[in-house]
């Protein structure tokens, strides 16, 4: 039996910014085990971005229960949430979100600085390792604008992984890429999941992306309407264990 990483119970989140309150999430319960690769799908406005923000400790639910690796997230303050993100979570975004004036290397090393790793030698060693694992050896000193979209997304993945987090949260990771590059990035994430046992949660509305995952969670109007394991991929996963 796989170890539980994320445990959501009866999560509610309402935004009061608009004229009428928006119930982004209603009574959502979700369990994700370590080593799973899960796609969270749904049309826009279904609450999948809100769910990602909750999972990524960027925001807290209004009510409910959230345990991340056994740790109660509901009672954490801003700094403690930042610490959770720093240690346990790596983000991959649709438009890469690299810092434009920093080199690939500096972008990858940034989480290490915030995690308090003081030795720049140690940071660079780990950054170099990550970049070469992503097939970007020799491009350490390139600026994001000197890299292709696929390369930029691989730098972003290297940045997400450099601190060895338990969870990678990818928000439409292929949204800004062409079909071929999208496929490349998905295979890369899949490989990381299978070879390193990395837990990957992908927010997407593209069925092709969902098909790479073992499990698809469908959201509509802030509620989970379907939670389906894909048998074929499950077989591969269990064969690995």
């Amino acid at each position, binding site marked *: 039996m796989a170890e539980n990483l994320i445990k959501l119970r009866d999560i509610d989140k309402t935004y009061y910014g608009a004229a009428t309150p928006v119930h982004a999430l209603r009574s959502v319960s979700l369990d994700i085990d370590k080593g799973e690769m899960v796609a969270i799908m749904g049309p826009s406005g279904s609450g999948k971005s809100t769910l990602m923000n909750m999972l990524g400790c960027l925001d807290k639910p209004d009510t409910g229960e959230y345990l991340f690796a056994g740790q109660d997230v509901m009672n954490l303050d801003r700094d403690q949430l930042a610490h959770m993100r720093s240690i346990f979570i790596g983000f991959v975004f649709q438009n890469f979100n690299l810092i434009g004036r920093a080199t690939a290397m500096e972008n990858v090393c940034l989480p290490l*600085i915030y995690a308090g790793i003081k030795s720049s030698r140690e940071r660079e060693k780990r950054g170099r390792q990550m970049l070469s694992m992503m097939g970007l050896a020799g491009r350490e000193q390139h600026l994001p604008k000197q890299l292709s979209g696929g390369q930029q997304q691989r730098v972003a993945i290297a940045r997400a992984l450099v601190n060895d987090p338990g969870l990678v949260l990818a928000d439409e990771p292929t949204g800004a890429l062409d079909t071929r590059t999208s496929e490349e990035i998905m295979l890369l994430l899949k490989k990381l999941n299978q070879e390193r046992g990395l837990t990957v949660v992908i927010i997407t509305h593209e069925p092709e992306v969902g098909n790479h995952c073992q499990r698809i969670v469908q959201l509509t109007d802030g509620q989970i309407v379907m939670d389906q394991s894909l048998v074929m991929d499950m077989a591969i996963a269990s064969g690995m264990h």
Partner: protein
Amino acid sequence: MDLTSSLKMATQSLLANKMRSFLTMLGVIIGVGAVIIMVALGQGTAAGITDSISSMGANLLTVSAGGGFGPVRGATTAQLTNADAEAIKSLPLVKNVAAESSTSATISYGSATWSTTVDGTWPELMSIKEQDTVQGSFFTAEDNSKSNPVAVLGGTVVENLLPGVATPVGETIKINGISFTIIGILENKGSSMGNDQDDIIYIPLNTLQQRMIGGGSVRSISVQAASAENLNPLKEYLTTLLRQRHRLAETADNDFRIQDTTELLATIEDTTAMMSFLLGGIAAVSLLVGGIGIMNIMLVSVTERTREIGIRMAIGATGRAIRTQFLIESLVLCLIGGIMGILLGWAGGLAITSLTDLNMKIAPWLVLLSLGFATAIGLFFGYYPANKAARMNPIDALRFE
């Protein structure tokens, strides 16, 4: 987050917008530069005035003809005489007395000529001014009483009139056509307040009066007291004596004035100190305006980089780390601006002093104070934008376009 990484990040983002960073700094550069120039010139001027006054002699009262301050009133020719000066000599508390009168003259030596001031005085003047000769000696009381045609030259006169003459002492020069023997060369005093104190010739007062200007009047009488405490009583004695000798009625104003160098010095020091702090204050206001410029640009920068802030927060930056980053950016701006401002102030001061007679004095405390001020401005005006960045909601920041 460690300091090296923070500094590197700060310089990186400042270099990304070089022109803007420079323009932002300009306020601080000009502000600090202005503070430095204003205070340094004020201090230099004060030091110059102090020097020139103390070179006149210590514990000195200067009696000159004419009453009160400002322009001399009425027909005031010859209100001080040799006899007045002689009488002052016998007052108690007096250490040295030297009467003085001067005229401009053309000096010639062979074919060389030089125009300068010829000062007729008593030998006591050298003790009052604490000045010595480097060659020969000063004239004596006997030279004065006999009206001997002897002259003691300042360094500037020697340089211009007798260049290359190894021992000017013993040579004969002509002052307004009258032959004088050089008996001494003075040690150099340098210039003060643009006044070359070595461009002068001293001759005995009697010689000046009898051979050159005629009459027994003196322009001023320097009276040195034995100590500073004696200055005020001595001033009283002088007043009583001179009023008596000039037969002034009870109600009449003094027809002479007595200047106290110590008092003068204190007044001038106070005034220049006040002036330099006033000017420094005005300059500090411009520094403050520079600081507001920094805050303005930092606010723009924080808004522009909202998305970046969101990314940094998502990958684990705490509010504190973000705040530190922006604070360091504004600190770096202000410190570099401050250093450039000090250089600008120094260069500007040099330019001003080379073009005018003003003096400049950049004290170490002034440099430290300016840098401290720049740092304080950076912290003060950088805090609000930095805090604004630190308090952003990561989700909103990430969504910012």
